């Protein structure tokens, strides 16, 4: 069966976002120094990840940066075989959610672990990384 006729639009647009990070700059700065920091509300003590300047629990705008340490436990994971178009150059990767002491959870790549060796409950460490594109990120490795 042949495709019905269509108007193949000639008006192409490219979307590329400049995402403000001024209120979470400390996270990326300390990551460069090997520390994994997030925000803690100065009023009610609520620890948030991802970090946020304003407290989602009590709405206070006063927060401080705290070190989450590096140790976490694997909660769940997946191995991405079909990658998005903008990750076409990446090899398949494993994504894990790790839980830190105190209950804060973080989603990141799990590196250096074969998918068949990953399972809920294994001990992880989070480490700073620089991507092939030159941008800072963080990844889990096996502790």
């Amino acid at each position, binding site marked *: 069966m042949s*495709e019905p006729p*269509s108007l193949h639009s000639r008006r192409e647009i490219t979307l590329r976002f400049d*995402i403000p990070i001024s209120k979470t700059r400390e996270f990326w700065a300390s990551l460069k120094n090997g520390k994994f920091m997030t925000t803690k509300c100065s009023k009610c003590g609520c620890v948030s990840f991802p970090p946020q300047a304003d407290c989602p629990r009590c709405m206070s705008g006063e927060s401080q940066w705290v070190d989450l340490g590096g140790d976490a436990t694997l909660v769940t994971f*997946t191995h991405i075989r079909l990658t*998005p178009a903008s990750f076409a150059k990446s090899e398949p990767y494993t994504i894990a*959610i790790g839980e830190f002491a105190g209950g804060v*959870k973080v989603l990141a790549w799990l590196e250096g672990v074969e998918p068949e060796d990953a399972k809920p409950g294994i001990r992880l460490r989070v480490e700073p990384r620089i991507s092939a594109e030159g*941008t800072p*990120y963080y990844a889990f490795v096996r502790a």
Partner: protein
Amino acid sequence: MGHRAVSRVAIVGIGNSRFGRRTDVNIGELAFESIKQAIDDSGVDRKDISNVVVGSMGSWSEESLPAVVVNEYAGLSGVGTMRVEAACASGSAALKSAYNSILSGEGDIAMAVGVEKMTEVDSSTTVELIGRAGSYTWEFENYGMTFPGYYALYAVAHMSRFGTTEEDMARVAVKAHHYGAMNPLAQFQKEITLEKALGSQVVAWPLKLYDACPLTDGSAAVVLASEEVAKKLTDTPVWIKGVGYSSDSANMSRRGSYVGLEAAVRAARSAYAMAKVTPGDIDVATAHDCFTIAELMAYEDLGFCKKGEAASMIREGQTEIGGKIPVNLDGGLKAKGHPIGATGVSMAVEITKQLRGEAGRHQAPIRNGVGLVHNIGGTGHYAYVTILSRS
């Protein structure tokens, strides 16, 4: 516009386009197929419709303002309107909004339309846009999360905690295709075997191609009326008895658990309380099976079984015709297809057909006259549960 109290609202007209790769129609033409059916089915005059709410996610089709495009094509310009977005639950959000407008007394007749054109851009772009449905900066920019990837996180947790298997998930796909083969509007009208589902390409382990719903073009529409008007229009009104809705965090890392959708549990609790029914009263349901694991979690989140027992339900055939609560007899998102904004409205169309006894080959036995629509947006970001009843 008489602003008087309305206590009950009914679905009095339904329409559903053929789902699939609909390169033969643009968004206005596609929505028209459902709108015309729904208006003809209801017998209302278009000039008596006060409000048309359009559920559509967009961004993969060319029109930025789908609501006015759809209304113009159907001769409805001038009506009160808006487009609503609750990701894959946009259709249920449109239904709720139209329902509320009648309850408020602003008008006696309203319409909810769901429409999505997903095949006008290349599929890898659409897949990428869907994968961004989370917290972009923290989940996509550096980590390339995908939609199957998100649901795979649930699947691994459920497998690890309750012993659910890849076969259990594949059984959901086999059931979907079995009923899809009986639905002339479905994208896939073909049975599949367990072996075929299990042998399909892994997209995000443990989820495979046959655990996932397809990209779909489609539309659906329902006409709603106040009790006074509904009783004049039809002998078979289907009443909206309960509507529950809730939400959860954008970031997957902020969810409380990965073995169910907490937003769905909250939405279900509200809907059951409002409708004054329990899970045991439900004759037939649609569950949001964007992935097979999502249908299994829905059984538990809706209270169709206890936590951790969903795998037993599918193994025992409890969600097939003749079982405890038949689920997704239209083929579900997996086989009928999942045109994002249209899905919630299409689910309401299916349950209305079931309660009217008009579902043909995939008709469920109706005892209590009560059906349920479970419609999830994103990866549990939005949850809507709607309970429909013949009385």
